[in-house]
Each structure stands twice: as structure tokens, then as C-alpha cells.
């Protein structure tokens, strides 16, 4: 155990910090769930890629720097410290990207990864269906093999970023006789293909962060299949592991929120209810705990270990922490906490309300926290299935 950074790690941090200080936009970008904001966020991804900072942990051949996971954490810390924009392509770079590296053919990797890193292809996720939510194995959308093409039919829903994205990665039922987890296949679909219809869904905040996607005899070539036919569930579980576990929720995101909460408490301390002091301390502690656990996981991965059902522990911890931090902030703000950003007296507080609404999605997406608790109970604690 050595909890100090090496001189090489310090040097990497300095380089990342220097570049970010010079390039992060001075003003926050408009919401990525508007046409204007989406374009601005895509442009930021291009800027990152031009500096080779888009995907630091990817191999150089795919636009990365080939750095190790500790350095990836360092980059994330600097990214959040710098207040850099959210990653509009997170479904691609953090979920599909690692899955492609594990399951993709060389041709698929060469075709998709560099364009993904450069923000040229922004990806949406198409797994849930109206009747396949927590019960994801109830998927009904079909893919029928027809010569060298699959013909897709059916509906996907809650597809984040699908309103403006270029591609979507989906799971379809390729074997019409199959039940549950069998007979599913992971397929990559361009959203401009003939027969694809995207219908935006307004979220709690009124913006269209997700969409329904309809497939009506959509033809995609066989080479758009990721992994073997019928292996879709296994491939999807690898993706879900990235979503719940390491990549998507780097600890710096929560530490930066905790730091803002500490600053807010200091501003409000004189009139704040003393009971809130302990809530702020708990938030800070849990953000630190999440960070330390990630360093522990990364250390284990770097010494040849793997991450399995532990990803479910992670997902519960960060999602509950995020809700707790935002609830505490809104309690500190009292009546002002309900103001939208453009309200005359809102000042800078509107961000907390936005963040609160987003935090409430955390216990739901990436597999609800109830599904995660089932996974923990059955796979880590050995309790019997229902």
C-alpha cells in the first residue's frame, strides 16, 4: 500500500491540468439536450480529441494515450476540478467503447472507436422496451436474418441522447422461439437508417434527454452485430458492468459536488439549521469513501483482478450519495432551492435544482437499485433466487 502519487503521476496531472486550464470554455455550455447545446458539446469532444484528451485510457491506435487506470482517475479529477463540460457521448465512450474492446472484431474497433473518441459518432443506448424495464430479459424487438442483413422491428424506450445522436446500440431477439436471456443479439444501428423513427420524450425538467425509438423493417448489415448471434445478454451484461461500476461514475464527479456543497454550507453557515452540518459532513465522507473504493478497485484491476457483482455495490452507493448531496444543498437553500436558473433571484443556485432532478434518475437507470440489491444478495451473499 502506497497512497502517494509517483513523480510520473504528478507529471501527468500537471500536463492534464495545464491543457484543461487553457481549453475549458469559460462559460458553461447550454444543455446538451437542446440542439444548440448538443452541437456545442460535440464541438467540445472534438477539441478534447484534438488534444488527445478524449479517451486517455484507450490505446493510441484508437485516439487515446494508453495510460493506466490510476492516470485515468487523475485525468478525471482534473477534468471535474476544471469544471469541464459533461460528456455528451458518455454512452459511447464509457459503455459501448469498453464493450467493443472486449467483444468487437478488429474491423469494428477500427471503424467505431476513433470516430467515437472524436465525437463524430455520438451514441445512444437502446435496451429498455415498454414491457422490458427491470425485467430486461422480456425484450420483444426482433432482428431477423435475411441474407447478409438483419431486419429490425419493434420499439425501444428511455434511450438517452437518442434525440440528437448518430447511432444507437440495441439488443434484439434474433431467435423468435427463444425465451428470456437466450436468443438475444447485440446490434449497432445508425439512427438515420430507413425505417427508424425517433420520438423525443420530455423529462422531469421539460427537456428531451431521452426518446422512444421505433424500428419498422430497418435493414442493417450483419457486420453491425457485436459478439455472436444469441450472445447478446452476455455482451450486454459486460456493458452494464461498466455502467454500474467503474467507468461512467468516476469519483471526482461526486467529490466536486461535495466540494460545492461544503462551499455552499460555508456561505450559508450563519443562518443554516445546525442539523444540516452533520448532513454536509456525511456527504463529504461518502464522496471520499467512494473515491477510496475506486482507487482500491483500480489497484486490484491493475494487479490482475477483475470486477464482478461488486459493481452493484458501487451503483447503490454513488446513486444514493448523489441524491443525499443534492437534498442537503436544497435544504440549505431553503425557499430559494425551488428557483429555476432564470428566476431573478436565482443567482447561481439553479444548478442545485437541475442536479437534484438528475440525481433522482440515478437510483433508476443502469438497473434500478432494487435490481442491484437482488444481485448483491444472490451473487455476493449467496441468498436463494425467488
Amino acid at each position, binding site marked *: *500500500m*502506497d*497512497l*502517494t*502519487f*509517483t513523480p510520473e*503521476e*504528478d507529471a501527468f496531472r500537471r500536463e492534464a491540468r495545464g491543457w484543461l486550464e487553457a481549453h475549458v470554455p469559460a462559460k458553461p455550455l447550454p444543455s446538451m439536450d437542446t440542439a444548440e447545446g448538443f452541437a456545442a458539446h460535440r464541438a467540445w469532444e472534438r477539441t478534447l480529441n484534438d488534444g488527445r484528451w478524449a479517451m486517455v485510457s484507450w490505446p493510441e491506435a484508437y485516439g487515446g494515450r494508453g495510460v493506466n487506470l490510476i492516470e485515468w*482517475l*487523475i485525468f478525471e*479529477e482534473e477534468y471535474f*476540478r476544471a469544471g469541464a463540460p459533461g460528456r455528451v457521448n458518455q454512452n459511447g465512450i464509457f459503455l459501448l467503447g469498453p464493450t467493443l474492446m472486449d467483444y468487437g472484431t478488429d474491423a469494428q474497433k477500427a471503424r467505431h472507436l476513433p470516430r467515437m473518441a472524436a465525437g463524430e459518432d455520438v451514441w445512444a443506448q437502446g435496451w429498455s422496451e415498454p414491457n422490458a424495464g427491470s425485467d430486461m430479459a422480456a425484450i420483444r424487438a426482433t432482428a431477423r436474418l435475411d441474407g447478409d442483413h438483419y431486419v429490425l422491428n419493434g420499439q425501444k424506450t428511455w434511450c438517452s441522447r437518442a434525440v440528437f445522436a448518430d447511432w444507437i446500440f440495441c439488443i434484439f431477439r434474433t431467435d423468435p422461439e427463444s425465451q428470456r436471456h437466450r436468443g438475444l443479439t447485440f446490434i449497432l444501428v445508425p439512427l438515420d437508417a430507413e425505417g427508424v423513427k425517433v420520438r423525443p420524450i420530455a423529462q422531469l425538467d421539460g427537456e428531451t434527454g431521452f426518446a422512444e425509438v421505433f424500428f419498422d423493417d430497418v435493414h442493417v448489415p450483419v457486420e453491425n452485430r457485436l459478439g455472436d448471434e444469441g450472445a447478446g445478454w452476455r455482451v450486454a451484461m459486460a456493458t452494464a458492468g461498466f455502467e454500474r461500476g467503474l467507468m461512467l461514475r468516476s*469519483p*471526482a464527479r461526486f*467529490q*466536486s459536488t*461535495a*466540494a460545492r456543497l*461544503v462551499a455552499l*454550507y*460555508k456561505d450559508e*453557515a450563519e443562518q443554516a439549521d445546525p442539523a444540516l*452540518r*452533520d448532513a*454536509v*459532513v*456525511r456527504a*463529504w*465522507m*461518502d*464522496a*471520499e*469513501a*467512494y*473515491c*477510496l*473504493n475506486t*482507487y*482500491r478497485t483500480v*489497484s*486490484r484491476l491493475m*494487479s490482475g483482478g477483475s470486477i464482478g457483482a*461488486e459493481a*452493484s*455495490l458501487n451503483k*447503490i*452507493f454513488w446513486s444514493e450519495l448523489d441524491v443525499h448531496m443534492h437534498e442537503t444543498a436544497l435544504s440549505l437553500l431553503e425557499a430559494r432551492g425551488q428557483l429555476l436558473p432564470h428566476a431573478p433571484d436565482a443567482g447561481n443556485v439553479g444548478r442545485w435544482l437541475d442536479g437534484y432532478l438528475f440525481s433522482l434518475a440515478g437510483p433508476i437507470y443502469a438497473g434500478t437499485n432494487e435490481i*442491484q*440489491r*437482488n444481485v*448483491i*444478495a*444472490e451473487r*455476493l*451473499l*449467496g*441468498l*436463494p*433466487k*425467488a
Partner: protein
Amino acid sequence: MELLFTDDQLAFQESVRGFLQKECEPERLRKLWETESGRSPEFWAKLAEMGILGMTAPEEHGGLGMNEVDLVLVLEEIGRAALAAPVAETVAVGVPLLAACGSPALQAEWIPKVVAGEAALSFGHADTPFVHDAHVADLLLLHAGGRTDSDIAVHAVPRGDVTLVHEPGNDPAGRLYRVEWQPSPETRIATGAVAGTALALAFDRAALAAAAQLVGIAQQLVDLAAHYATQREQFGRPIGSFQAIKHMLASVQVRVEFARPVLYRAAWTVAEDTAERMVAVSHAKAAAAEAAILAARTALQVHGAIGYTWEVDLHIWMKRAWALDVAWGTRLWHRARIGRAVLDDSAAPSFGYSARA
């Protein structure tokens, strides 16, 4: 940067776990409750043979010269086994304090005896009213005076020179004492700033040792409850197949798992005596206690009425959890200490996120 134990450290943890599983069977623990001392001299000798009593002793006195990172996993196993012996008091706190403050002659007199299993130590601090296992400690290391450099001191007092008042507590394996004694120049081993620094460090070592045991206890309670839930049937199936049971236990496991890295980091800050030590130790103690108290509450609920009996072993660990929760600073005390560092002072640094470039 690496938050990982070595293969040697993990292998030693494994062997200690196997040893304690054999030696601390609940039936044996219960027999000790009935004895006057509640402790077993034969078992103390076996702990010395295993090398546990010499872990923190300097090599010149026959010890292994190890630090808190080596020790923390062993203390976790001690909690998991509900061991009834003053290992934390002697190995985690007493020996390092004696090695820091004791004269060469005093160290040479006592530390080899501890390593050989012929002596035990305990520690009394003004912030805590009781001295654990004082009745079997041959030498007591005691905080005298107040908190300021002008009147603070550390004394090393043989048990024969103090009066012990036994305070029976809720944990049948616990042995708590109020110690009545008179400081004298002969027993004084440190004064002023040296004593202040040593006592603060000793307090943190005691809190760290409690945190480590609490993590072990918490995991044991979850495992006991999970095992019971796979055996016990109601409505024609194991109660562990119901989500009401699964979700309770999964929620506890989340808290246990996230207390671990906090504990390990705290052990490292004590071993290296870094600037973050107090915040890290308080975080570990508060997080471990929260996990263990939640585990106790949940394990009892999963067991139902049978868990509420004296006969079932569950209370061995529940009562140890409740006892350690309030020893060496309560959760609120430790969170308040973190609060002062994070909210009042110039903001304690965040791990990684606040690193200087």
C-alpha cells in the same frame, strides 16, 4: 499509488482467520464469560506463538517491527472472531506508545515479555472513562493531567499500584474498569508536547483498532444473517428468497464494503503519520461503527425472535458492536471532528481530487 495489500499481508490474514475460527468457537467464548477474569492465559500464549503479540514490537526487542497496515487485517479478523483478549490494547496501542515514550530500560523490561506472551498492556485516556482489560494488563499506560502541554503526561503504572473498580457492561465478554491511581515522578514516562503528541496518536490508534474490529464484526453479522436466511423456511421457502430480506442485507453489505477502503487508508495514515491522520481515523471509526450497528440491527431482524434469545450466538457479535461503537469516540464525536477539519478550518483535502500538481 496503490491501495492494495501485499500477498504476504493477505496470507497472514488467512492464517489468522483459520487460527481464530478454531480457537474462538462460540461455546468456548461462552465458557470464558463464566470465569472471573473472562480471559485465558493459555490462549494469550498461543497468540504470542502465532506472532500476533509481537507484530508492532521493535525488532531489537524480539518483535516483527510491523505497522498499522500490516496489523489492520489481523484486527479485522479479531472482530470477526469476537476474540476476548486485549490484543488491540496491547499490540495496537500499548507497545507503540511504550516504544515512543518509555525509557530504554522500561522498554527492555516490558516489550520482550509482551512478545513472549508473558505480559499484557492497556491504555487509559482522559477522553474515555474506562480502561479495557485493566485486570489482566500487567502495565497500564495512563493519561495524567489535562490537555495542555503544561500539565499533560503519560505514566506507566504496574497493575499492583492501582485500584480497579469493575464496571460490568452489556458485552458478556467485555471487562471494563475505572482505574484509581496517583501519578508519581517514578511512573511518569513523558511530559509536555511529547506526551500530548503521543497521547493523541495513541487515541487514534485505539479508534483505528476499534474501527478494524467493527468492520470484521459487521461482515460476520451479515454472513450469519445470510446463512440463517438460507436455512430458515417460512411460507414453504427459505426466507432469504424474499426481497424484503435480500434488500435489507444488501443495503448493509454496501455500507460494510465502503467502510473497508476508508479503514485501510486510515491505517496507512497512522503508519505514515500523515497530516490527514485524524480525519482519516475519524472517518474510519464513524463509517465502521455505522456499518456494524446497521448490521447488528438487520441481523437481529432477519433472525426474528430466535435472535432475541441468549441461547443463539448472534448477541456475541451484536454486543461487541454496541460496545465498540461507543468506545474511543462515538460516531457523532468523530463526525464532529471531521466537520471541524472540513467546514471550519481551511478545508481538509479530498483524496486525489485535491492533489497538488
